[in-house]
């Protein structure tokens, strides 16, 4: 009560400058204290960043603000007025708009239809459509967010789809925009464009909350930044007065090595050779288009590109999960029948290990105990078997050993895999694939959804594998990761390798290549 009185007394005075104030927010999920007594003030007309590791409570906090969850205690003040946000409708009424990480758009609707969705203005669409079109055009010019109102969503690039999400929020009268990890699916150029739009919105007096784990973005566009750790708001800084190192340390709670230390590569013989590989997906669309490259022992070849440009299909085809239409793959100089009979189990026996891009969908069986996941794909190895029976003792002993070597926490091989954090789950996969002493290692998105502390560890392990003479093919949509780990960088765009660059190449040049601009003539000619 005292808090409320306090807030009321300030009401209408100087704190008009805050668009949003959260006071003493608490939220539990079972025994997990997701938000511990969180207070946050967001100045009107500013860009406020919120960073924190996975599970730090950022999303929970924003979900409370957007009405998906109710806080157990605490107040939400919007423009200085105490508000109860019971659902997302109330949030929209209060002028809060949210752009989700995964877009909430109807794919076969036009832009205009998506914008209108939920604000149709009566059962007869005719009048509503005309009004919506006029309003949309006004918004587009006001914020220079050009989108064709009649374009179908699924035909638009992701960057534009995101613009539609922003327009949708503005159409509903949002004064406060929450963006959840907005750049995850964008090329660097698209991200820059987004930042320009956000800057413009800020100038128009909108308030923006940006949730991200990318420190660089925070430094680039925010005015203020708040750091969350384990459900607590540990610090709020003016962006101009802080550094990347300080923020990283605040996030993790200890000093973090952001740069990867690695020596010069010492490439040996070719271990993996891909020639003119072409892969179609189930709908017959060409996903990988005549791709050729070599990976040598003792080097890391990075494949950069925006998600969805064929990297996943390339990786899965080499691993034998998917079949190719044409082309060939040589593993240790011996051919792999990628067109028909390639089998992941046999390729594993031939020394090909694969850390899949999506550990939840592919790399792990979440309801399994940790030790059961630690043999996935290697379960036919004689070490783990006693005739047709599983050798449970040997499996568990082996899992316990890997848990120790990879510092997997909690150190229990009987725990359900789903109960490990993202970083530890990734370590389970890495331990399984690395400890078999493969000659070729395919690594997809090794640090997606992994916290900063674990990223450091994972990167170090990958470098160690390289130094031990393994041929490593790395696919990542994080350009920073590609640049810091790789010895050579290939850029994929629309299924083609459009260029090979040195990892030290200027980021904007790589960014342009990722958007298909400035492809190497010689590469195209060679294909």
């Amino acid at each position, binding site marked *: 009560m005292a808090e409320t009185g306090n807030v009321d007394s300030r009401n209408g005075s100087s704190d008009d400058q805050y668009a949003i104030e959260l006071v003493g927010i608490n939220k539990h*999920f*079972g*025994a*997990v204290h997701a938000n511990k007594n969180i207070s946050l003030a967001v100045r009107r007309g500013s860009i406020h960043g919120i960073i924190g590791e996975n*599970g730090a409570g950022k999303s929970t906090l924003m979900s409370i603000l957007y009405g998906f969850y109710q806080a157990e205690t605490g107040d939400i003040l919007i423009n200085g007025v105490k508000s109860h946000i019971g659902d997302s409708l109330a949030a929209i009424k209060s002028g809060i708009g949210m752009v989700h990480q995964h877009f909430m758009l109807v794919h076969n609707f036009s832009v205009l239809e998506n914008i209108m969705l939920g604000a149709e203005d009566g059962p007869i669409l005719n009048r509503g459509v005309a009004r919506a079109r006029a309003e949309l055009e006004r918004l587009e010019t006001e914020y220079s967010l050009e989108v064709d109102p009649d374009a179908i969503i699924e035909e638009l690039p992701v960057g534009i789809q995101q613009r539609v999400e922003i327009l949708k929020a503005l159409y509903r009268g949002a004064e406060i925009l929450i963006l959840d990890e907005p750049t995850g699916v964008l090329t660097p150029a698209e991200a820059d464009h987004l930042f320009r739009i956000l800057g413009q919105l800020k100038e128009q007096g909108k308030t923006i909350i940006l949730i991200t784990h990318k420190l660089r973005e925070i430094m680039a566009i925010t005015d203020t930044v708040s750091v969350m750790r*384990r459900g607590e708001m540990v610090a709020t800084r003016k962006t101009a007065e802080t550094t990347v190192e300080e923020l990283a340390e605040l996030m993790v709670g200890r000093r973090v090595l952001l740069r990867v230390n690695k020596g010069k590569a010492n490439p040996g013989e070719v271990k993996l050779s891909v020639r003119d590989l072409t892969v179609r997906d189930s709908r017959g669309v060409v996903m990988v288009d005549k791709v050729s490259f070599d990976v040598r022992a003792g080097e890391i070849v990075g494949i950069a590109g925006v998600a969805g440009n064929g990297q996943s299909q390339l990786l899965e085809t080499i*691993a*034998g*999960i998917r079949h190719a239409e044409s082309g060939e793959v040589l593993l240790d100089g011996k051919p792999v029948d990628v067109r028909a009979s390639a*089998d*992941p*189990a*046999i*390729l*594993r026996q031939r020394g090909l290990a*694969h850390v*899949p891009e999506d550990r939840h*969908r*592919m*790399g*792990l*069986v*979440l*309801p*399994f105990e940790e030790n*059961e996941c630690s*043999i*996935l*794909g290697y*379960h*036919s190895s004689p070490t783990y*078997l006693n005739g*047709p*029976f*599983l050798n*449970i003792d040997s499996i568990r002993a082996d899992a316990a050993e890997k848990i120790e070597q990879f510092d997997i*926490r*909690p150190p229990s091989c009987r725990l*359900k895999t*789903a*109960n490990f*954090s993202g970083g530890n789950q990734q370590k389970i996969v890495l331990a399984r694939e690395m400890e078999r002493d493969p000659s070729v290692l395919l690594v997809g998105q090794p640090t997606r959804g992994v916290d900063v502390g674990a990223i450091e560890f994972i990167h170090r392990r990958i470098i160690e594998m390289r130094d031990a003479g393994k041929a490593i093919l790395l696919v990542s949509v994080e350009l920073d990761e590609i640049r810091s780990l790789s010895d050579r960088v290939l850029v994929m765009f629309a299924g083609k390798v459009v260029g090979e660059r040195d990892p030290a190449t200027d980021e904007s040049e790589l960014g342009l290549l990722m958007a298909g601009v400035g492809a190497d003539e010689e590469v195209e000619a060679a294909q």
Partner: protein
Amino acid sequence: MTRDLPKWIDFGLLPLINLVVAFLIAGLVVLLIGENPARAAYLLVRGAFGSGYGLGFTLYYATTFIFTGLAVAMAFHAGLFNIGGEGQAYIGGLGVALVCLSVDSILPWWLTFPLAILGAALFGAAWAFIPAVLQAKRGSHIVITTIMFNFIASAVMVYLLAGPLQKSATLGPRTRDFEAGAQIPKLDWMFSPLGIDLGSSPLNITFLLALVMAFLIWLLIWRTRFGYEIRTLGLNPTAARYAGIPEVRIIVVTMMISGALAGMMALNPVMGDQSRLQLEFTEGAGFVGIAVALMGRSHPAGIIPAAILFGALYQGGAELAFDMPNITRDMIVLIQGLVILFAGAMEHMFRPAVTRLYFSMGFDRAKPEEAS
């Protein structure tokens, strides 16, 4: 992050709550038709367990349900919903009968029985084979195809029993009675030392076979490489592909094992009770198997008690209908339906409430905070 409840709640308390609620609602219905629910419950329990004869019948029914429950559970683990237990059991009965009819006058029962087991398993497996291949190779949904195969099985059996296998038109659609070589022992030798007289109940050695199969299925699913592959495919098909697990083979073999288990159910009524093959001997046991598997959480250790529960409902229900004329056979079906509804279909209804209660009462405090 999902928090797990301890096993005693997950496998003990929650099914118990579901069961109690099912019986409470059934009690309300009994009250509505003007009978005393407490007395009805007493009669039901007494009918099922109150005498050696009742117990014998309860376990006889349970035997059938253990087989069909295991059949459904087996397929569940590979992510397949085998609704065709009924048809597979029916055709399994054909396998049993063909063996018995051909050797019952030549061989002693202890040679006929293993052959009949083989016949039941082979015929049941064969009936599951076609839907399995259609699913694995063509993607035809196994739920649809197995339902269709139930109807086909039924039609085939009517044709055979009213035609080639019929003894005489006057006795109706059934085979001749089996001779001594196809009579399998009852379990009096096991129960009489305990002072239990099974009377004329048909409980027979198939019950022991069911227990052995439950153990073997547990061994197969949780202790063999093949079982590991089945569980991987069932829980995450994409991970199975990633691991190089042969999907087609797993689907086909798992379904054939499932069909074999359903087929072996036929040993119990055909050899153990009726001593001949007749129409509709399965009496819906294939479908009860679905409820048994759901309630038993697809684990043999859960399937056995669930099968005994349903056996008790069948036997106790029959007694109840006899003692309380107001309560008809349909009422018993209603009670069974409620149990299926609460234990199977609405299995998770009380879970959120129990979870909240459990964690709010701080039972989990003893656990150290997990590093994240």
